[in-house]
């Protein structure tokens, strides 16, 4: 009997683990369950050992758990790969003859290959496995066969038919096994079964961008930032988006700025290593006061690091990228809804303040899948902040707030002249120290209202009895929420930041008389240091992890329990 189930599917790259995940998520969601999945994989195209975790929960949970209730092994090297996560309670579905001396009492001999071959090919093992799961939990078979027929229709009737055979074989095996081994789910369906859609972080980012009127992306592929580029590339015609694969990241951001100068709403996407190359463009954006949205999907560095893993190690990079002093903003969404919202906000803010705006995500957030209530997706008004110029137009006219009305070439009677050299109101190169002083001031002045209007961090739990605030940013929101829920100790509350720069001024009162903990996926506590610097408060404890894996709920619970006895 499971009230909160964690299943892990493990196979070599190319064995179709992602197909199982896709199928199960769709069918389980369709049936009405809350589902969440996250993925960890090696930087290779075939072989190795990749896993996907799928959770079915009564309360909506969007976090990784270390615990494995059921493990589906498509390859033999699973046990070694997952030895730290397998316990005496883990049921392992595997093929006895392949497993050899790893076989234990917890194993259930599951003839994945035999059924797959019966269906037509060993390649159907993944569909058999998905069938076993659905059979065990008594999910109506028709939901699965309908999904398969839809999914494989393009590949021809024969392929779809064989998939259905594989599904049925797995399904009846699962049903029988559940009866014999007394396996069942005790998870009620959420009331009302709201219309929800499945989404991963990259998709949410893409939806946010399109909703924000994004119509230009120039980028160079780099995991895990490529998802956005792919999403937009698939929608160029439908939504009128110009998608260009740049020759390198330097070209990407400079093309983005060129397009933005001409009035496009431009974004670039990359990861830390690619962003290293973009830094000159950030500085240029600051100087020519041209909007650009920069998405950094973080992964462990330095250098090539762990290309397919996760980390939050690029906050300092985004914070300090580009030489010289200028204004920027950095968002750090932690849920699908936050990704969609902050992405829209990033575009509007970039146009309004004529600055570079960052969205920091990571592999874990971008590639985890969850559900979102479609009707609740928040839409912001697309704000252009453009004027039609007159003959006397000056691109860098001085104003009270430092922001000059922005024109674009070809719209109005004026000329739009921008220069990376220090310049006067007309964009003409100057070496006047007085003009320099005024321009520096102009570029920084806007920081004031940017800070005043920064996103207010989200309080998790209640502040009333809380002695300790556990602070997260970016992808750690959901794991912190669940960990605090598990602990159930009113002495702890959480604070989640979906904007890490500039910081909302409300944090000073929020932090008053509280002990501060910060949890983040990096080795040095980059956000903890930023908070200390900005608030003058010391951080009592940094909960850090930089192995390339996300935090698990258990880990955070342990860390907080431990601190309780300090």
């Amino acid at each position, binding site marked *: 009997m499971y009230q909160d189930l964690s299943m892990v599917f493990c196979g070599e790259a190319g064995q179709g683990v992602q197909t199982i995940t896709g199928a199960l998520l769709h069918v389980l969601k369709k049936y009405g369950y809350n589902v969440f999945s996250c993925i960890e994989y090696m930087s290779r195209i075939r072989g190795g050992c990749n896993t996907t975790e799928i959770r079915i929960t009564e309360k909506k949970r969007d976090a990784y758990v270390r615990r494995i209730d059921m493990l589906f092994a498509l390859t033999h090297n699973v046990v070694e790969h997952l030895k730290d996560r397998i316990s005496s309670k883990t049921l392992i579905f595997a093929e006895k003859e392949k497993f050899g001396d790893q076989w234990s009492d917890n194993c259930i001999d599951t003839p994945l290959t035999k059924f797959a071959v019966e269906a037509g090919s060993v390649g159907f093992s993944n569909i058999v496995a998905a069938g076993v799961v659905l059979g065990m939990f008594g999910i109506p078979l028709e939901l699965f066969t309908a999904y398969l027929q839809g999914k494989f229709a393009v590949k021809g009737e024969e392929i779809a038919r064989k998939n259905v055979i594989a599904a049925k074989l797995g399904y009846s095996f699962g049903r029988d096994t559940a009866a014999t081994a007394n396996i069942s789910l005790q998870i009620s369906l959420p009331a009302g079964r709201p219309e929800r859609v499945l989404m991963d972080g990259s*998709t949410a980012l893409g939806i946010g961008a399109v909703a924000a009127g994004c*119509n230009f992306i120039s980028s160079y592929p780099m995991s895990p930032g490529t998802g956005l580029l792919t999403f937009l590339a698939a929608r160029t015609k439908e939504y009128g988006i110009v998608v260009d694969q740049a020759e390198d990241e330097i*070209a990407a951001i*400079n093309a983005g700025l060129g397009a933005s*100068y*001409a009035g*496009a709403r431009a974004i670039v996407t990359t990861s830390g290593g690619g962003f290293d190359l973009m830094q*000159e463009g950030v500085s240029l954006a600051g100087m020519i006061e041209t909007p650009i949205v920069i998405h950094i999907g973080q992964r462990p560095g330095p250098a090539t690091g762990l290309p397919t893993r996760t980390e939050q190690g690029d906050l300092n990079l985004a914070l300090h990228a580009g030489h010289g002093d200028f204004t920027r903003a950095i968002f750090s969404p932690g849920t699908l809804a936050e990704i969609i919202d902050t992405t829209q906000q990033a575009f509007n803010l970039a146009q309004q303040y004529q600055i570079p705006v960052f969205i920091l995500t990571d592999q874990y957030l971008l590639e985890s899948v969850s559900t979102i209530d*479609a009707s609740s997706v928040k839409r912001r008004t697309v704000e252009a902040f453009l004027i039609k110029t007159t003959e006397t137009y000056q691109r860098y006219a001085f104003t009270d707030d430092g922001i000059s009305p922005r024109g674009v070439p070809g719209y109005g009677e004026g000329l739009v002249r921008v220069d*990376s050299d220090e310049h006067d109101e007309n964009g003409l190169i100057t070496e006047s120290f007085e003009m320099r002083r005024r321009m520096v001031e102009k570029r920084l002045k806007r920081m004031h209202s940017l800070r005043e209007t920064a996103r207010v961090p989200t309080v998790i739990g209640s502040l009333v009895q809380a002695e300790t605030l556990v602070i997260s940013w970016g992808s750690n929101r959901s794991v912190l929420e669940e960990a605090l829920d598990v602990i159930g100790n009113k002495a702890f509350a959480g604070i989640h930041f979906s904007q890490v720069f500039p910081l909302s001024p409300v944090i000073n009162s929020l932090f008053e008389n509280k002990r501060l903990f910060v949890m983040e996926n990096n080795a040095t506590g980059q956000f903890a240091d930023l908070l200390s610097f900005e608030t003058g408060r010391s951080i009592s404890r940094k909960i850090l992890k930089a192995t390339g894996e996300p935090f698990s709920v258990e880990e955070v619970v342990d860390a907080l329990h431990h601190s309780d006895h300090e």
Partner: protein
Amino acid sequence: MNKTVTPFDMPDGTDVAWCPGCGNHMLLSAVKFALHELGIDRKNLVMVSGIGQAAKAPQYIKANMFNGLHGRSLPAAQGIKLANRNLVVVVESGDGDMYGEGGNHFLHAIRRNIDITVIVHDNMVYGLTKGQASPTSQRSMTTPIQESGVMLEPFNPLTVALALNAPFVARAYAGDVERTQEIIKQAIAFKGFSIVDIFQPCVVFNKVNTYQWFREHTVYLPENHNVGDRTGAFGLAIQQDKLPLGVFYRNEQRELYEDQMGIGTIPLYQSNPLDEEAFQKLVNNSL
């Protein structure tokens, strides 16, 4: 040369940062006259450049201007054109900016074939950083850094452009404003990526490739030169004793990148926000 007024002239008294006698002055005239004779509206013209002495040219032309970073004129120019193809986009930069710092962009801009014109002030030396070798410096020229003479083979922009099937490839000499102006006009009028490499003497730092040297070492392509012959153009481009000037190659057959992408004439700044139905479709068709 009579000083005809063009709509692209900056106000009298505008400070020009070039040295007296520099080839840039003549090139600036040639560009402005070419633009004027083509009847281009300065409101629809964007002059794009990187960094260097040549890259200051847009400062002295009354038009829209994007003076970006060193080596990055091409990515910016292509972004501008893709965002609004109604604009006339002309890049003006030096040999160091275009072939050194921006070399990779040069290769890939030719591959894309976006309708922009690239005018390269090629003086075979670094001026603004005081006389070091540039990618086009000739072997054995001595400089404060290349004390024993330049050891690298010079970058040949024409052969590289031809190798990548650049659809318009030309070379000019700034000392001959009228012919240069004529070549620039053809380049701007050409629908596609056009490159004009322009020999331009640096009177301060290049004591080898002087006005006299260029006069003695250049020759115009014959009237009957076949601009459709890519192989022939390549042969002329590697010629060393007398360096040919003129339009080497034209290829009207290459399709524009913007056409292949289906980019229409409505600029991106006029894009309409999604209506509610399109937004719901976007959200619901996610995975």
